[in-house]
């Protein structure tokens, strides 16, 4: 029933014109006029090159752009692709757009995309971030093929990053998702992914849309739903993920959407995740690229200060969240100078688990719990930078594996402090 309320009459009219499709590419946007044409061109080229016979459409779901983003989508022409890259189109490739509100809501955007995919009986639904300016046409194939040809239900991306990029993913989201849900999905919170029509329809009917954690981090909810539902999940190497400046500058908001959603996911899935120990690799398609080599400036001094200040100022809050042993360890770490600074994997893993348990118990306002985690994460980030400063990608990967092992080893600890345990 979701689509009946989600899709406007105008949207339905456009979808009628598109008709049944094999591939639906969803583009959630909000004021992306600077980047959207690059992304659209890459998608169009990717479809025409790799799926010339398939029925495909681009579906823009806009959160009230003021900069003409939807108009740029609907005015994009495949004739331009022909002129630019001499890729011939057998079929009509629709690019349609609908607006759902005046502010971006990722949850509503994805729901609208999935409702359209369901209505159009899309075999594969792909979501692509509108600010992925480094996107290449080949991404479309790498996301679509595993679903379309190999019958996977969810394709998560693996990006080519600099070793210091994606620190939140590497230090928290990946290790914890892996230990909790038992699958080694490197980017469980992705802005590019593909899903089967079956998963799209099932996820659309899922109650997660109405749950707080689902609203906060719907992309993570999708991954977790797929893992918990025993859908076939795989990963596909894409390319360089352009970093969104907006996201990096608002770490609290990012933590809310990611860590908050991950913690929230534990509430209702206890029966599932509590029985999992260890983790299994998921099929990974494509060739692993070399890590990016570029100059990434990290203000280590500021990270240390923010950590130390946070630990000091938030002591009363932290006392209600973490164990006395962890608090003592944090306070000790806060005294370390920049050269000897070390927030060890074990302490970090325990910290995260204690935050997750506190979040579940709502010992204080949940938002305050996430805010309290931010300075601690900065401390862990500093250790991450210091540890990996001079190391190759291979060594960084080994250290990442070790951190994940620590999360998995300490999972019984989480179960021990979890109030629902039997």
């Amino acid at each position, binding site marked *: 029933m979701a689509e009946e309320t989600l899709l406007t009459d105008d949207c339905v*009219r*456009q979808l*009628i*014109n598109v*008709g*049944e499709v094999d591939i639906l590419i969803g583009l959630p946007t909000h004021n992306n006029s600077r980047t959207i044409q690059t992304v659209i061109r890459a998608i169009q080229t990717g479809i025409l090159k790799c799926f*010339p*016979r398939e*029925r495909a459409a681009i579906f823009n779901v806009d959160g009230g752009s003021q900069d003409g983003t939807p108009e740029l989508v609907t005015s994009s022409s495949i004739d331009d692709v022909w002129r630019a890259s001499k890729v*011939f*189109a*057998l*079929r*009509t490739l*629709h690019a349609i757009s609908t607006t759902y509100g005046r502010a971006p809501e990722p949850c509503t955007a994805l729901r609208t995309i999935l409702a359209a995919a369901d209505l159009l009986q899309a075999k594969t639904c792909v979501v692509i971030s509108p600010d992925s300016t480094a996107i290449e046409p080949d991404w479309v194939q790498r996301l679509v093929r595993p679903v379309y040809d190999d019958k996977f239900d969810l394709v998560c991306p693996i990006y080519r990053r600099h070793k210091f990029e994606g620190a939140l993913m590497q230090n928290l989201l990946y290790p914890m998702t892996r230990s909790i849900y038992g699958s080694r999905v490197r980017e469980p919170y992705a802005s590019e992914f593909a899903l089967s029509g079956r998963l799209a329809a099932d996820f659309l009917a899922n109650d997660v849309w109405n749950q707080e954690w689902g609203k906060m981090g719907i992309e993570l909810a999708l991954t977790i739903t797929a893992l918990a539902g025993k859908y076939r999940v795989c990963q596909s190497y894409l390319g360089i993920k352009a970093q969104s400046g907006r996201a990096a500058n608002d770490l609290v908001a990012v933590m809310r959407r990611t860590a908050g959603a991950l913690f929230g996911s534990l509430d209702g899935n206890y029966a599932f995740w509590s029985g999992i120990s260890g983790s299994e690799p998921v099929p990974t398609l494509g060739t692993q690229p070399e890590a990016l080599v570029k100059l990434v400036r990290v203000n280590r001094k500021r990270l240390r200060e923010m950590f130390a200040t946070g630990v000091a100022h938030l002591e009363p809050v932290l006392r209600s969240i973490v164990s006395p042993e962890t608090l003592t360890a944090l306070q000790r770490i806060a005294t370390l100078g920049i050269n000897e600074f070390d927030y060890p994997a074990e302490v970090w893993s325990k910290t995260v688990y204690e935050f997750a348990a506190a979040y579940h118990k709502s010992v204080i306002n949940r938002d305050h719990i996430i805010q309290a985690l931010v300075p601690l994460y900065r401390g862990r980030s500093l250790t991450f930078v210091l540890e990996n400063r001079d190391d190759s990608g291979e060594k960084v990967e080994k250290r990442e594996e070790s951190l994940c092992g620590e999360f998995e080893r300490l999972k019984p600890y989480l179960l021990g402090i979890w109030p629902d345990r039997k």
Partner: protein
Amino acid sequence: MVLKRETSWYKDATIYQVHVRSFSDANGDGIGDFPGLAQKLSYVQALGVNAIWLMPFFPSPLRDDGYDISDYRAVHPSYGTLDDFKRFLSIAHERGIRVIIEMVLNHTSDQHPWFQESRSSQNNPKRDWYVWSDTDSKYRGTRIIFLDTEMSNWAWDPISKSYYWHRFFSHQPDLNYDNPAVREEMWNVMKFWLELGIDGFRLDAVPYLIEREGTSCENLPETHAIIRDLRKRVDEQFPGVMLLAEANQWPADLRPYFGEGDEFHMAFHFPLMPRMFMGLRLEDRKPITEILQQTPQIPGSCQWCLFLRNHDELTLEMVTDVERDYMYDIYARDKGMRLNLGIRRRLAPLLDNDRRRIELMNGMLMSLPGTPILYYGDEIGMGDNIYLGDRNGVRTPMQWSGGWNGGFSTADPESLYSPPILNPVYGYQAVNVSSQERTPHSLLSWMKHIIEVRRSSTVFGSGSIEFLYPANHRILAYVRQFGKETVLVVNNLSSAAQAVELDLRRYKGNILIEMFGRNVFPRIGDAPYLLTMGPYQFFWFRLRRI
């Protein structure tokens, strides 16, 4: 009887393509003939067509189904005599059916006396009637057309110990049109048939008449000059006779064959045909609208010739590689269905014998700008036999009844020129004229009806076309207009029901009258005109302001 010499009769015509050999055998020798064809003209007339196009019926060794002519002024003895032809022509005219015959200008059979003389010695007076060379390295930029059988456009002649030029099979040497004697003699050949009263020529393989070094040897200016000269002679001496070009070229390359209205009257639109099949299978109008957008305007007196199938393979020369691969995968999965750069199948099997798709394709054929040509047997949904060599699988005997040899011949079945189609789906016992004439809802009855409806309006033959581009790409819609008459055509290319909104505001106030049932549809207003269409359904609406 001589039909009225209307100079543009071909614009509103519906043409029926027939092979004498395949249509009806009157003398019981297993091969169709002119007396048999003459007997069946009542059927052709009842079908509603007003012109018949005969494939080559001249004396020939028949190594290319008659396109290898060995005598231009006679009838192949298997098909009857010249008197038989004259009788057939007379009856056809009495029934209001014009007759178009084939004229293979480009080449002859290697058995033609001209070639025999030409090869006999380098000093023979007819030596220059063909294109000879001491080497096989001239005209290297010229493509080979029959890729499956020919390695080169040159063939070694062991008698005169030199190479001769051939664009088609090596047993079909090209005539040398740089030689004025050849040009004059070919005009005399045409004049011979024109004086008997035929109404038009389909001129075979016209782009290849002239060869020049450093070119593709196709569409050369000298070729156009020859055609202009022939046209001038025809207009002066035989007004009302139509010249139809067989030139498998892109529309832009075809356009010069119309000249300023002083070359061909008509030309086949080869690139459109495969795209109709493609659009149907893709359920997308894009291939069709694109090629028609690329089709240049032609002089008012000229006309395109449209067809779905003919005696040749469904040619895929005028498509891109991506399109060709798609067509092969969709319409010719069995490699035995492929020949040269094409697909050797009939209409009904190509469309999986789906009556709705057959009707839709014929609906488009009859309503797009041009003169439609129907290939014999397709009006009853005949099948093909891909196990017969070359293109013979689509040239099997016409299926008249469920009786002996399908009513084609009284000969022993073993002596027929070709085995008839026998399989349970397309065989003559299942698919034949006799049974379909008895059924008002048969394909044959439906074909008669659509031809009749098409003939009720000159808009289809002479009208302009304007495409509507509704957002639903599965709908191909266009407005045909001629004088005060306007017809809206809406085709659903999809296998599923579709809703479509048409912007018809410029026709506001008109009501729509569906041309097949004459039912009235709502008046056009300011709002988009909503139509719901069944799978593969099409509508022809006459717009009337009442």
